[in-house]
């Protein structure tokens, strides 16, 4: 019940295309859903995050869509660029003092020229 399922495992998109990564969860106690971007040899860097009372959040080329009833959320990267090539992790936060993050398994995105 604590798992966050992420798909696809890898994704190849042409420059200028749309990258879509999907995540699903079971635990209704999750109260915050961030996406992290990770480059090789680096730590996860916060990309964008959404609260469950919002259905969509957009920041530049990055959009999160959130479907509370289906317990699913997705990341859309518009106009994908080679510099977006990285591993993307969705995560879900458990509330309270700990506020630990449960991560998805990651999606390796490659944007080709």
């Amino acid at each position: 019940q604590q798992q966050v399922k992420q798909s696809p495992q890898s994704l190849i998109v042409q420059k200028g295309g749309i990258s879509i990564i999907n995540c699903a969860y079971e635990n209704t106690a999750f109260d915050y859903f961030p996406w992290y971007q990770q480059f090789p040899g680096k730590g996860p860097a916060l990309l964008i995050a959404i609260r469950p009372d919002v259905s969509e959040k957009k920041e530049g080329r990055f959009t999160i869509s959130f479907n509370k009833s289906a317990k699913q959320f997705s990341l859309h990267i518009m106009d994908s660029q080679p510099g977006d090539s990285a591993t993307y992790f969705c995560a879900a936060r458990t509330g309270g003092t700990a506020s630990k993050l449960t991560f998805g398994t990651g999606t390796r995105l490659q944007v080709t020229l």
Partner: protein
Amino acid sequence: EPEVTQTPSHQVTQMGQEVILRCVPISNHLYFYWYRQILGQKVEFLVSFYNNEISEKSEIFDDQFSVERPDGSNFTLKIRSTKLEDSAMYFCASRGTGSYQPQHFGDGTRLSIL
């Protein structure tokens, strides 16, 4: 922009030895975390720390692990007797006060157990 810093970037240790991983969280943050990432796998929660005590720990965080905030700036993870399966990237994270403050991660320490 403030960042979480971790040292060393790579630690090589013999099995059975003690290792201490160090982190300097962002200065005004009060919530601290350790996560680990085995090569090619997802990031896994180890422990959260607030107000000088552990607030939650995972089943991975057994008696061989401990955390400490020895002074006002450092946050450490100690593994008393390392095992081969402890080989992983260890990430420190911190967050500020407030309901929806995000966790900020350091670049990690790669721990290799021989």
